[in-house]
């Protein structure tokens, strides 16, 4: 009887000694599984490309803000017609069933007395731009926030029949959700 008790006590003692290692092994394996699960990505972020496509679509589209030859129908993406540079023209170019999909602000800047000043600005989806712009500028990260992409390019613009030089600044805001 005494011998059997000693045997059982030895076995139990060994198991108790091994318990921390068993728990550690289990926790490590679970963490490896969680790591593998986290590394499997199915999300695709195309916001920078959306901003690029939106920018060039507005520049190259006929019936848009750029100068279009009446005879040939050719579009000159580097020349902006100030008469067509307004919210109505830009909003008519693209309609999304989800209004927040994309919003933008376009500014034509001109050099005056050595400083860049605003010549004219126009919006695509102005209401949503004004709502999301503070979030995007603050750099808040989260599902309800937005990302801002800015593009600047030198352009010519037609004002009162004259060709002027300036810069086009386009700020695109895309919501994260």
């Amino acid at each position: 009887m005494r011998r059997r008790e000693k045997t059982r006590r030895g076995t139990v003692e060994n198991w108790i000694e091994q318990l921390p290692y068993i728990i550690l092994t289990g926790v490590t394996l679970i963490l490896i599984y969680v790591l593998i699960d986290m590394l499997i990505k199915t999300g695709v972020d195309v916001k920078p490309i959306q901003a690029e496509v939106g920018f060039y679509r507005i520049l190259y589209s006929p019936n848009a803000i750029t100068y279009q030859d009446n005879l040939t129908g050719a579009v000159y993406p580097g020349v902006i017609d100030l008469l067509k540079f307004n919210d109505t023209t830009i909003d008519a170019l693209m309609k999304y069933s989800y209004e927040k999909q994309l919003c933008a602000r376009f500014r034509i800047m001109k050099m005056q007395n050595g400083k860049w000043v605003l010549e004219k600005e126009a919006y695509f989806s102005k209401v949503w731009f004004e709502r999301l712009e503070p979030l995007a500028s603050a750099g808040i990260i989260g599902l309800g926030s937005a990302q801002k992409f800015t593009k600047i390019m030198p352009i010519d613009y037609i004002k009162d029949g004259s060709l002027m030089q300036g810069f086009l600044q386009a700020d695109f805001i895309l919501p994260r959700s």
Partner: protein
Amino acid sequence: MGRLRKRAEMSSFLYFIILEVIVFGMFAYAVTTKVNSAVKDTTFVRRVYSRDLALLIDSLHSANGEFIVNYELDRPLDFAITPQRVIFFDHSDINVNKRPFSAFLFGSNGYVNVTPTWMNESRLVYFLVSSNNTISLPAEVNRDNPSNQDYEPRENLDGTITLVAKEMVDK
């Protein structure tokens, strides 16, 4: 006493080894199953194609001239192009509205028409055509063996899709 203690240690060591083998076996099974399901899952592929095709249609809206784009898939997928979005589905016989899908919007306007299209042909190569202010995905219509090429997707208000038969036109 020494022999008894040694036997106790041997048996507990053996039980420990068996337990470890079982735990590692369960771990290997769980990881293999997880990785296999991730490899077979088409969520990522559907998302990539829906975004890619939608952005391509978006950029074709500003195209000046005629364009024919040879669009290739790496696996058979069903997709629908509606006037506002591109939707990719897994290729199967299940009702369209019950399949997992990935969709992406493109901007429409009054100047360019996008022809609603439904494709479930298990093809890997398609031709996206932009011509005369119309963007379409033409497919050959086989009158002897009509397939779902003869249907076009109509978006309902609740977001589901109804496939409506197109009028058959002689070649």
